[in-house]
């Protein structure tokens, strides 16, 4: 093994592998890669939070990725694979510098609907993939909140999902086969391009949700579903949050599996109304979607859900108005952004730490969890919101703080830590869909216990030099940045 090369030498070596036009080393090009969705805001207000990579490379094909990894392994240079940078847990932060692999150019999409599958490069966007599939009558359903921008590679790396997961499941349920480049540059194919297989260990599943810590995914084969041509959306607004939960439980208890079953609290409703909607006032709401192939079945299912909601005192909108239904969905996708409308003034720097808590709970524990979290918010003086995918036990909590104030940052951090630990104590998981990254690494051991040691053993086996996305998922220690204290110490 030789030492890490100087930047100019690194640039020259990388250019030899992928061409000069696919290598970036100027500060202006590196800076946008020093953060992801999670860290950008903090970096904006606490400028010392700058984790510059040494280079950014935009490979075009697997063989180039292989050469880069062989080289990086030899010189022990960190490699951070990256999609659209929409991650919410700091998965993409180059905490030790190194080479960011921006996989945007590996964006091939090859629909094979006759086999009910699609083959895609990691840089293909979810939206583009679904445009191609929908033209052929199919779709890839997980629908994360970042659906318009995120990449398929990013979705596989974080096992992403969203509002469609209650009926259709998360990304993992769709991965049939992966091509992966290992740390030493070896190219392996995991799984086969077939609907099912009972052959050997399912190693592809090890890489789903591995956040770039075990290898670089260079090709993805996904199962696809027939696109449901009939869709109906309704919003039910309740006089109490409990009423919304009770209605949700009743819907699920009746044996209905809606296409989506989303919960919004009072502040979310307020934010939506401040964004131009005229929704009824209430303490909680459910956004319901039903889909399928047959109109009668879809409308029948929706009617039953609406009855359940009205039985709990809800006022419903959108049942007869498909255009409003579509607008409600668009609004739901932008709920995080709408929350900024609740802030006192746009000039006042405030961070909305939205969705930074995305715990998953047993359905029976959700109401208790939300009640206790709201009590915690009040006790700690935190302005925050609860929303999420109530159909699959996934709760998001967003809270705001003034980044210039160390006390507020500390208060927000402590609150979020308590919210995560509360979920674990109720038998939940610390992340249902966003992944671990940097931000949740400190709590991973509390959830997994000795199983985390097994994960670390696998990491050492597959990445003995520890070059792949270091600092994430508590696999090789926890960087101080993940503990947050350092943020204001260094200000």
């Amino acid at each position, binding site marked *: 093994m030789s030492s890490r090369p100087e930047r100019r030498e690194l640039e020259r070596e990388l250019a030899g592998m992928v061409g000069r036009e696919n290598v970036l080393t100027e500060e202006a090009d590196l800076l946008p890669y020093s953060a992801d969705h999670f860290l950008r805001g903090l970096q904006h207000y606490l400028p010392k939070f700058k984790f510059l990579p040494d280079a950014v490379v935009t490979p075009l094909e697997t063989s180039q990725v292989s050469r880069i990894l062989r080289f990086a392994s030899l010189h022990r240079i960190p490699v951070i694979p990256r999609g659209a940078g929409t991650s919410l847990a700091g998965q993409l932060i180059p905490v030790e510098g190194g080479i960011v692999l921006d996989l945007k150019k590996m964006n091939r999409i090859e629909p094979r609907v006759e086999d009910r599958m699609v083959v895609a490069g990691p840089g293909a966007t979810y939206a583009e993939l679904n445009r191609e599939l929908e033209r052929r009558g199919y779709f890839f359903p997980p629908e994360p909140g970042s659906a318009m921008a995120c990449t398929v590679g990013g979705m596989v790396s974080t096992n992403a999902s969203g509002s469609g997961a209650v009926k259709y499941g998360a990304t993992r349920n769709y991965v049939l086969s992966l091509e992966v480049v290992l740390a030493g540059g070896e190219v392996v194919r995991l799984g086969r391009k077939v609907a099912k297989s009972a052959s050997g260990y399912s190693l592809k599943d090890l890489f789903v949700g591995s956040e770039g810590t075990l290898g670089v995914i260079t090709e993805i084969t996904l199962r696809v579903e027939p696109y449901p041509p009939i869709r109906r959306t309704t919003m039910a607004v309740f006089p109490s949050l409990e009423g919304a939960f009770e209605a949700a439980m009743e819907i699920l208890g009746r044996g209905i599996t809606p296409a989506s079953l989303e919960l919004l609290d009072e502040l979310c409703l307020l934010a939506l109304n401040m964004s131009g909607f005229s929704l009824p006032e209430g303490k909680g709401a459910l956004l319901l979607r039903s889909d399928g192939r047959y109109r009668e079945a879809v409308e029948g299912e929706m009617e039953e859900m609406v009855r359940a909601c009205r039985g709990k005192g809800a006022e419903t909108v959108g049942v007869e108005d498909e255009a409003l239904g579509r607008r409600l969905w668009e609004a739901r996708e932008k709920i995080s*952004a709408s929350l900024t409308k609740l802030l006192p003034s746009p000039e006042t720097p405030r961070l909305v730490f939205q969705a930074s808590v995305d715990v998953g709970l047993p359905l029976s524990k959700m109401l208790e969890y939300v009640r206790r979290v709201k009590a915690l918010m009040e006790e700690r003086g935190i302005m925050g919101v609860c929303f999420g995918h109530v159909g699959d036990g996934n709760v998001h909590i967003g809270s705001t703080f003034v980044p210039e104030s160390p006390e507020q940052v500390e208060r927000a951090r402590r609150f979020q830590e308590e919210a995560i630990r509360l979920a674990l104590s109720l038998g939940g998981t610390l992340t249902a869909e966003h992944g671990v990254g940097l931000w949740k690494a400190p709590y991973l051991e509390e959830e997994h216990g000795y199983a985390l040691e097994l994960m670390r053993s696998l990491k050492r086996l597959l990445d003995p030099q520890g070059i792949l996305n270091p600092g994430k998922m508590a696999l090789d220690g926890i960087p101080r940045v993940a503990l947050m204290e350092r943020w204001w110490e260094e200000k």
Partner: protein
Amino acid sequence: MRLEELRTKINACMSSSTACGLCRTQCPSLELWGVESRAPRGRMALCAHLLRGDLPPSNTVAERMFSCVLCGNCDAVCPVGAGPSRVIEAARERLRERGFLPPKYGERGGHVAREHNPYLEPHASRLSWLPPGLHLPGKAPLVYFAGCTSSYREKELAGKVVELLGRMGLEFTLLGDEWCCGSFLLRTGQGEADGATVEGMARHNLEEVGRRGAREVVVNCPGCYRAWKSDYPELGVEPEVGVLHLVQLLDRERGRLRAERGGEVRVTYHDPCHLGRHMGVYEEPRRLLSSLPGVELVEMPRNRENSWCCGSGGGFRAGYPDASKQVAKRRLEEARETGAQVLVTACPFCLRQLRETAEAFGLGLRVVDLVEFLLERWG
């Protein structure tokens, strides 16, 4: 843009609930180069660093800002209204003030100051498009402002505009001394160029309108339309006359149109960014096309506020001629996939860009301006 406004927009984007990357969904320069520093979110991050002072201005930073087409697709999808394209425009202005204006734009800006057009042409030949023998009155209720692109690069189109207005029986005239509207300067960060300001140009053009006694100004260039209708008031120069894009005038006066000739044809309409996304004019050209006998109007999948740019805006065609053709090619392929035989637009700049690209790549699609299309079917 005032500093506070700039800061507010950047703060809105950078709050951790956003910086969401939705603006990556339809960005021509991201499609071309595939890197974050040439995507709206990356450019916003660079602007944030510039504003904080922890990134020095440089030619590289300037290049990243000038490699944007300013189509505004990012503004349309931004969930917090941060308006990346406006921030990029403001960054161009500040980079120019610090001496980092790419020379190509500076040369053209200087020419606007001296000869009142960015095409490096003499002012004296501005009216060379005028059809011989055309006599226009000294005063009229309507003034046609041809703009630089029609006057110097799409002369035939300018001639057809006056022909169409004449056939419609409208009483109109031209300015005695028309100057550039200033759009090129505003889009390339040159609110001031060699001592000339856009405010000054606006005042000159308005005085010329006043001399004609006109109540309305009609333009066929969407860049000019945005300048007159939106930028001038923002600069504190409020036109005291009505300002219309030609499609609005034609729509209002469609009872005067006699475009009834010609066989059956399938057409699609390309929304110019300046007319559609920036100014909200979407339906008038569609109403006109749909009302023509034998014409079937079909939409491209990306239309109205989601329309894909032709690749020529924001100084991009001048700065990146080859890359800009790639953007246009994508639009033309979309148009062809609709099965349309003709792509109609309402902008001399889009017309030039799309027509030249269709020819260069042999795409077999006819590109025309709405004015040309209406005249072809007159009778």
